[in-house]
């Protein structure tokens, strides 16, 4: 069978390993995208969140065969965007980051939300981030940061 072709942060790549390999492991080990964190390996924490064809996914629950011809964005690519700069500033200003482990996933979840719904209510933010666990902040600062980013980045999403 042929290699698995996909776009990773804008670059075309061909993966030669098994179709059953876990996207999370491949992103970290083969492509050195270490922003993608392994928290639980069962879809329960969101630390491994990535955006596949514009949609948020837990990369621990994706086999490589499922990403053929897909476009994948991790924090390594997303951090180069203007949208990221707005989110980064908002998270920083509100001290929405403590240990940082959940943050790449949290920021990509915020991007997935804002790209679909640029002016979310607080309830919608909490719902969309509900699969991303944070054990430090207590969530309020993160929710407020996303709210501020939506305001500050008006027009970007």
């Amino acid at each position, binding site marked *: *069978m*042929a*290699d*698995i072709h996909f776009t990773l942060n804008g670059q075309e790549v061909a*993966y*030669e*390993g*098994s*179709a*059953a390999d*876990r996207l999370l492991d491949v992103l970290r080990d083969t492509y050195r995208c270490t922003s993608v964190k392994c928290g639980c*390996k*069962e*879809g*329960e924490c*969101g630390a491994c*969140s990535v955006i596949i064809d514009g*949609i*948020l*996914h*837990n990369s*621990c*629950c*994706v*086999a*490589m*065969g*499922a990403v*053929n011809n897909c476009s994948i964005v991790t924090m390594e690519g997303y951090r180069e965007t203007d949208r990221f700069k707005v989110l980064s500033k908002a998270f920083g200003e509100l001290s929405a980051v403590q240990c940082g482990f959940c943050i790449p996933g949290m920021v990509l*979840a915020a991007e*997935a939300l804002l790209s679909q719904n640029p002016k979310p209510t607080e309830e919608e933010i909490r*719902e*969309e981030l*509900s*699969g*991303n*666990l944070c054990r430090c902040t207590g969530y309020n600062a993160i929710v407020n940061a996303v709210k501020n980013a939506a305001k500050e980045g008006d027009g970007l999403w």
Partner: protein
Amino acid sequence: MVDGFIANSLAEALEIRATQDVVPYAGGTDLMVVNRPGLTYLFIGKVPELKRVFVDEQYVHIGAAVTFTEAIHNPDVPTLMKEAISRIAAPAIRNAGTFGGNLGNGSAKADSVLIEFATDAKLRLVSAKGERIIDVDKFYLGRKKLDLAKDELIAEILLPSKGIENYAYTKVGGRNALAISRVSFAGVFASEEGKITNIAAAFGAVADTVLRYKDIEEMLLGKTIAEARELRQDYLQAYSERMVLTRGRVSAEYRKGVCMNLLGDFLTKFGI
């Protein structure tokens, strides 16, 4: 790619299913938790024939590879189903998880499957040789045991398009998001000219399969609300005697207590 098959059409998927030892992979959210070594997956998540939602005279057809997020945003999907699937896990899981996967995983905790039991849904199973349509309760032979042949795929779920507007649904989990059902309940009620024509009650996550006792439901069929109210205690007693629940993440006693409370609430909601 050294192993695995990616199907681009249903015909291609069925051909592979007929000739290879493969595990169908739609959304992957259950399969990848274990990702048992040595499995060869047949990736069917993008097969167009399995991604459709449409309505005909009798049924709402939901393709096996339709994700929960897609269904939540689809105006043709009944409200009862939307209410249940919008409480599955969290957005990223709902973006990947599918109706076919929820069935194929074989768990009695599957939130969409509970609704299929409560609404007398049917499943269309296909193979290279043909297709068959079966009632969802016949599909479940026991814990993780399914009536699905090695060459078959689940193609679509057929939900009744009418008569499931009046319902009660409750999911009891340990928290709001990312919660596996500890007990789940779906009841569907319908009446015509003052007489009860449907009073389906299904219980999820409390035994090897979703539970439903059609013979007990018959006690109230054809009765007026007033007559049904007279029978309420006998009806609840019949369920209490019949339900032998297993212990899971929570005790059997707790499960039983919650099931009986939810059943009582369902009756009360419809004036019984």
